[in-house]
């Protein structure tokens, strides 16, 4: 702490100018990088979403956004809608869980994918993996209920040590399914 810390009086104006210049330069640099990187980021995010939907509904050859519903997609095969891909959001043990749910037109779950989650590793985060996942797949809204009764084969068995995560994910999927059933009913 030698030379540059010598006591010297600076006017507030000098100090302000110094900070202003710093921020100005910083702003220019960030704006420049953003200008280059943002289009790439947007493109990648869109590609990733398409990829996720393709995994959920492998038979589909086209995904078209549904008008009037935000982020809803109709999975089409040869021009016919075979499934709906809708976002689901629910509150788990570690905060928000965001997912994409693929639902048949008859209201049964095809598959789902958890996109954002902060569940406990090794316990709650198994909600997006087997064997829990296969319990959800194929079920309709009526049986998307979590049970702790091991003899109940109709409903969804809670994961050991992660009841809250099990319930949250099941609820999120159920809400998505209900939404689709309502939408399909409305169209008909």
């Amino acid at each position, binding site marked *: 702490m030698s030379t540059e810390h010598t006591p010297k009086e600076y006017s507030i104006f000098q100090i302000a100018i*110094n*900070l202003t210049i*710093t921020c100005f330069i910083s702003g220019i640099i960030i704006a420049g990088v953003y200008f280059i990187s943002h289009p790439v980021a947007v493109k990648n995010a869109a590609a990733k979403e398409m990829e996720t939907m393709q995994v959920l509904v492998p038979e589909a050859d086209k995904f078209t956004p549904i008008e009037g519903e935000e982020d809803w997609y109709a999975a089409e095969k040869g021009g016919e809608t075979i499934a709906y891909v809708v976002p689901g959001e629910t509150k788990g043990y570690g905060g928000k869980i965001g997912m994409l749910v693929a639902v048949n037109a008859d209201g049964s779950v095809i598959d789902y994918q958890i996109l954002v989650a902060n569940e406990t590793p*090794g316990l709650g985060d198994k909600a997006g993996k087997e064997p829990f996942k296969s319990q959800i797949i194929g079920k309709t809204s009526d049986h998307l209920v979590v049970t702790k009764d091991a003899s109940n084969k109709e409903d969804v068995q809670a994961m050991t040590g992660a009841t809250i995560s099990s319930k949250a994910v099941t609820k999120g999927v159920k809400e998505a399914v209900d939404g689709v059933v309502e939408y399909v009913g409305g169209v008909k």
Partner: protein
Amino acid sequence: MNSLWSEFKKGIIAENPIFVLALSLCPALAVTSSATTSLTMGLSVMFVITMNNCVVSLIRNVVNPKVRVPVYITSIATIVTVVQLALQAYAPALYDALGIYLALIVVFAIILARAESFASKHTLIPSFFDGLGMGVGFCVALVIIGVLRELFGAGSIFGVKLLGDWYNAPLIMILPAGGFMLIGYLIGGWKMLVQHMEKKEAERSEA
């Protein structure tokens, strides 16, 4: 040349940011549950600390001493934002994995500490090597922790499964508590290593 090498080397072993200076332990815990995220975090910090040391060293004579800390923070924030934008565009998966900790690099104690205590008093070249050494030290420490935690906690390294299904992974290694314990043992082990090296050094100078 010799002194540059020692500027570089001290950050890795004798003054390792995590194991010796014990700075920035919070992110060292939070992102090290797998080796891949540890390495990305380490490399990001290495880049930021080296760049920032260079910038601070270059502008040290024009910065008004009364506002030097805000100016240094602005410089760090700019570099971090650039890293963030680049990762978001070209490695979105890693960007998601690092999450909020990437933005938190701005307030990492180690980076501001090096700017204030070293780069603001030295010329460009030594500052560069000081930053690089500290960055490499941080990165090495993070990767050691990450590899061990992933190996014990999930039976894999860099996502490659090493231990078979017979290995029933203890959950605690992935959780923060296990990270704390591991860092404790590693700090102990590091201390022994440093002492051993100093003893050898002393013997050599006596001889």
